[in-house]
């Protein structure tokens, strides 16, 4: 059995490496779960500050679940059941020159439908699905991140895909 190098996260190097390792994932998780209006960046900061305050009690290997739980709770306190708003990043269109107006309109409508459908997913489905599709994470990685089984991730993502397709067709 390998002994953990540090039994708490108080050392600044340990803390810094924890931050580099988890902050982006935590941020993405919060964004996909709660949307943009509650400022996930701030919650990430707050969660890490809490980790620093409690660094004596939290060994580095427990830091991830501490951070996710803390940030999630911080969000839940702030949420008070606000509706999720995901922002479509307005990237410059790749082939904007020779597209017909009909095509552009269609695409716009499709995006609106997709956004509604995404907002209608359960939090668990949306987080897993977007981490998979947008961040390109594999099932195993998501399972580790969320502390659930690979099978559960599979189920969530497949379920999300099915529901999205149904919703888009309906709308």
């Amino acid at each position, binding site marked *: 059995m390998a002994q953990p190098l540090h039994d708490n996260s108080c050392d600044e190097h340990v*803390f810094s490496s924890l*931050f*580099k390792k988890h902050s982006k994932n935590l941020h993405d998780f919060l964004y996909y779960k709660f949307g943009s209006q509650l400022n996930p960046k701030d919650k990430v900061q707050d969660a890490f*500050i809490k980790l620093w305050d409690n660094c004596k009690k939290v060994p580095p290997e427990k830091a991830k679940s501490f951070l996710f739980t803390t940030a999630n709770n911080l969000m839940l306190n702030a949420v008070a059941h606000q509706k999720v708003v*995901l922002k479509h*990043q307005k990237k410059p269109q790749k082939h904007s020159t020779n597209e017909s107006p009909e095509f552009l309109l269609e695409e716009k409508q499709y995006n609106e439908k997709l956004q509604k459908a995404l907002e209608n997913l359960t939090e668990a489905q949306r987080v897993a699905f977007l981490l998979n*599709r947008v*961040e*390109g994470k594999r099932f195993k990685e998501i399972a580790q991140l969320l502390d659930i089984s690979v099978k559960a991730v599979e189920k969530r993502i*497949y379920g999300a895909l099915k529901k999205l397709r149904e919703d888009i067709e309906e709308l």
Partner: protein
Amino acid sequence: MEREDLIQKWLDHNLNSEEQKAFEKLEDYDVLTKLSNATKGYKAPAYDSDSEYSIIAEKIKSKTAKNWLKPLIRVAAVLLIGFSIFYYTSTLDTTINTTIAEATITNLPDASTVELNSKSTIIYNKKSWSNNRTVRLEGEAFFDVEKGSKFDVITSEGKISVLGTRFNVKQRQNYFEVTCYEGLVAVTYNEQYMELRPGNRFTVIDGIITNEKEKRTKPSWMSNETTFTSTPLKYVLAELQRHYNVSIDASQLDTQRLFTGSFTHKNLDLALQSITLPLDITFSKNNGVIVLQSE
């Protein structure tokens, strides 16, 4: 290969080239890729963990900076409390009490002495003594004051100011008496100011002021005797009760009668005789109460 399996593998980014081809041949390939590509537009805002870390590092630094401040503040608080308690107690007034039949001698901070008769209290402040020699007195006391700045004795009846002298102050209910034995004593009574020379006594009984001579060199109570000159009997009996813990019933007597004489502090019967014989009074003890009657 099942359609569903292909989709699962596609979702898990786990298609090999053969499977990829099979997947592309699926009828809903277009729908799926379109959905997948459109979803990418909902990417979370870019997150730069380095710049975010620099923000948090700043916050943590200010926190750790406060870490040494906290215990320092605690130590400072303890010191402050300790110092204030010390200051408070050291500037606190000193109080000296005597009970019935007790007399005590006290040195004031500048070697002046106060001798307290029974059932009396003096209050003074050690700290400010050097520039404010003030004693508050309730009861009777003899003062031997060292030469120096003004020395004040404040009673509820009047104020006595001296420079360096020996004098006796007696303040009881409706009874105020100052006797000067040495030096010069200034008495302020009811905004009336007078100076007492050695061998003089200033007495106020029930508002009546009298001036008498005193031949002794120190108060009689200091040799365990109390002396009165033309004093109403009720004050004599009140004084007696300060030296002997007894209750006296004099309801059948005219306690305004004047008494001149003295009684001892050592023997109750002798003291009672000294008071009653000259006034033609008899006394009897009844359930611990001494009843006085005219003959």
